[in-house]
């Protein structure tokens, strides 16, 4: 944990609504060091995905304010052209639904090599690197499967392809937006393990967006708990699990069902309006 890679300060995002703009992220602060794994945790609608998308300015109709500094350069102030150069090359994104994130009429290989090809890497070299990466991610017979189409891959395999696309250009930061939600438990574990190994090998920082507290414990170094568009608690995973300070974090942890728990007791629901 040496130098800061990503520093988000007072990030606000609003979207046009029927009666004027609606602010959905109300001033979020985040810090991410090189090689660090940070989890952004919260229930649905807490603003975690919007925060991640705002960092990359993915939604053209969102109004953003605050600062998002990647290596000191404010991404929110960059012209579109320079922003495009950062997407995919310096920051990779793993999408939630691996089927929807792949173009159905292009081959797997074409899509994996695209981040390199559009930056002028010769096709042959890009292909070599793509096949190697796919094999590294545990796809058997990668050379032959490189020319297959997305529908010929299973869910877990597709997610490996999506990860390959995100990391092939060796970004400094990988944003993973619920990368395992669409997968079954066994595949989830394998995909997380791969992400862990890969980021370790390449000294990549990871911003993991999830609502699954089990994943956070096994994967991240630190966590930020979000609710209603605000970061309510930030700390090491250790602290958040064992010494939660914020009421919401405590409630969130208590709401996780446990196998050893008394099955006759109803699960705790989080009261609305609790801050």
């Amino acid at each position, binding site marked *: 944990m040496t130098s800061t890679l990503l520093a988000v300060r007072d990030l606000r995002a609003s979207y046009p609504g029927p009666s004027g703009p609606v602010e959905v992220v109300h001033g979020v602060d985040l810090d991410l060091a090189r090689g660090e794994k940070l989890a952004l945790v919260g229930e649905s609608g807490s603003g975690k995905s919007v925060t991640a998308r705002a960092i*990359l300015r*993915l939604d053209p109709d969102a109004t953003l304010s605050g600062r998002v500094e990647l290596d000191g350069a404010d991404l929110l102030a960059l012209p579109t052209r320079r922003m*495009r*150069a*950062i*997407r*995919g*090359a310096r920051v990779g*994104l793993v*999408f939630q*639904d691996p089927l*929807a*994130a*792949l*173009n*159905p*009429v*292009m081959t797997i290989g074409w899509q994996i090599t*695209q*981040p390199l090809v*559009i*930056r002028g890497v010769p096709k042959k070299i890009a292909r070599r690197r793509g096949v190697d990466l796919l094999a590294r991610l545990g796809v058997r017979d990668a050379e032959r499967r490189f020319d297959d*189409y997305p*529908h010929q891959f299973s869910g877990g395999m597709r997610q490996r392809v*999506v990860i390959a*696309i995100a990391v092939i250009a060796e970004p400094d930061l990988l944003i993973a937006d619920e990368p395992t939600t669409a997968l079954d438990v066994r595949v989830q574990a394998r995909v997380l393990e791969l992400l862990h190994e890969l980021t370790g090998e390449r000294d990549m920082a990871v911003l993991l967006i999830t609502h699954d507290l089990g994943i956070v414990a096994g994967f991240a170094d630190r966590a930020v708990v979000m609710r209603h568009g605000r970061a309510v608690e930030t700390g090491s995973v250790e602290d958040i699990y064992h010494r939660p300070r914020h009421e919401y974090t405590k409630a969130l942890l208590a709401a996780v069902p446990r196998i050893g728990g008394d099955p006759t007791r109803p699960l705790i629901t989080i009261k609305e309006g609790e801050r």
Partner: protein
Amino acid sequence: MTRIMAIDRIALAVAVLVVTLAVVGPFLAPHDPYAVDLANALHGPSAAHWFGTDVNGRDVLSRILYGAQVTLPATVIVIAAATLLGTLIGTVAALGGKAVDEVLMRLTDIGLSLPSIILALGLAAALGPGLRSAVIALALTWWPGYARLVRTLVREVKDAEYVDAARMLGVSRARLVFRHILPNALNSLYVQTTLDVSAVMLVISGLSFVGVGAQVPSAEWGAMIAAAANNLTNGWWAVAFPGLAILLTAVAFNLVGDWLRVRNDPTIREGVR
């Protein structure tokens, strides 16, 4: 599955045959298609004239072979022009923002409201009746349908997550449109175009039939039917064989369209190829 494959193959074979005949037809034609021989007028199919002769004693088979060179290119030009224009306008409308969309779609509405026959009649009056006027009029009235279709298809695809994902990789706008949005959106357009081959062919023939398309000595298929229709009772072959040529070509292109769609969609391609 195997039966569908067989039909596809036959359709492809027929389509290839029609196109081949359009190219080499004049070399195969047993007679001069324009040679009037009143002594042999309205003879039924025979060894000398397989498809019989028309009211002027011209060999129907030779005329059909020559006519393919008139009808097919005219159809292809109309379809190509309308597809290009329609795709361009539809795509720009779908991606260009509200104001652009509104202007282009109202323009499309104007185009849709013009009946091709009326426009062809007007153009025939301005440019002189002929195949050229018919082709221009048809292209001008055919594109709005494509523009509407493409606009809807592109709007559906442009918000797909894989388009988002590609944008996320720093893919440029042009590449996004040509490699990600259009290849996914235009699958249904292929089918529409091949279905339209028959429709356009029929309208060209129809325009020739009412007299604003191909003119009298021309062996255009519709013009042939128009000329022979007066003698339907005592010379059915002069109507039936050009009609059959239109029918066969139309059906073949329809089936080829279906086959093309299957070929272009990797998710249903397996086993059907």
